């Protein structure tokens, strides 16, 4: 390796500078599809974080064994195996979340974030850096999904993590839990995120 990686920078880049959702626009389907409540967003985020972490670990460990030409199919099989694990665990232990996330659980396989990190990072770096990279990127994804889910739940349902702070009859902006609200809420969050990060930099 040319120069040692600064692990703190490596961790933080996933949260802010290369945030998978707000900056890189990776994994948009689950981001928009499941974030009708903060809990769903958090659940999807954690499931993705797990798959990302495990696939980064495995890819980093066996990177020298995989022939260059078939590396993408090999990565996909590794990712699909862990997705199957997540699918079975969720179905057995958290059936409520399994119902809510539905088709988006098997679709973690085609989340470009995971394949992207396997290809761009884990296949070129050692185990420790790959773990830090996965946790940073994964947390960036978890935070983005939870914030988007929370925003939509507060505006659309008047509650947060199922805790209501307006009465059942109150008029909430139902638009935000319907599909169009996902696009609109994410658009404004992206503007806000750009604004905040530009100030920091």
């Amino acid at each position: 390796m040319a120069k040692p990686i600064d692990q703190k920078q490596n961790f933080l880049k996933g949260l802010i500078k290369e945030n998978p959702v707000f900056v890189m626009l990776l994994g948009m389907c689950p981001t928009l599809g499941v974030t009708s409540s903060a809990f769903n967003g958090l659940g999807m985020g954690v499931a993705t974080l797990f798959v990302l972490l495990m696939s980064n670990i495995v890819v980093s460990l066996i990177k020298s064994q995989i022939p260059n030409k078939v590396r993408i199919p090999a990565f996909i099989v590794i990712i699909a195996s862990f997705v199957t694990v997540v699918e079975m665990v969720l179905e057995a232990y958290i059936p409520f979340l399994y119902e809510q996330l539905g088709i988006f659980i098997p679709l973690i396989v085609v989340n470009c974030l995971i394949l992207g990190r396997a290809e761009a990072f884990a296949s070129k770096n050692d185990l420790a850096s790959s773990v830090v990279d996965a946790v940073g990127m994964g947390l960036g994804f978890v935070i983005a999904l939870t914030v988007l889910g929370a925003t939509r739940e507060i505006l659309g349902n008047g509650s947060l993590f199922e805790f209501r702070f307006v009465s059942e009859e109150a008029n909430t902006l139902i638009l935000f839990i319907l599909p169009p609200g996902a696009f609109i809420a994410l658009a404004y969050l992206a503007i806000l995120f750009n604004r905040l990060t530009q100030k920091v930099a």
Partner: protein
Amino acid sequence: MEYFVILIGAVFVNNIVLSQFLGICPFLGVSNKISTSVGMSGAVMFVMTIATTVTYLLHQYVLVPFELDYLRTITFILVIAALVQMVEIILKKVSPPLYQALGVFLPLITTNCAVLGVAILALGMEDSTLLKAVFFAFSSAIGFGLALIVFASIREFLELADIPEGMKGVPINLLVAGLLSLAFLGFAGLV
């Protein structure tokens, strides 16, 4: 009649892009020009229909009889990846003009979650048959194409529009997608 309901349902009411959020990556990624979006829609239509045919048969005659249902995700993604490769090779040989038009989009389709998503959704249809599943995939692909081409034509106009600095790029595209999705919400309850 039944097929007509499937068609209207998949194209307008439950549009895979605008109300099911499948295939958002190509939707945002290749929609800056109408010509590329037409090419992408054609490639997706082609692959989605073939992929659903193969995965449906595989599920019905291999995975279910041998109780290997839990391998669904792995087998489906591998089948789709292999199929995309095969379609690419065959097209190159058989129909060079079609390959010219669709070729660059084919590799991108493996990671298009709409293809895997529709293959899985087709299994869950009410009293599904092979013909219904394939027709559903074909209709979904039309829905994808419709959304993509409409979105691309709006984006071509946006190139010339005066947009506030902070909203340029991603945010304005998402807002436009939101408004399109709002328009499609009007079809809810049609079938």
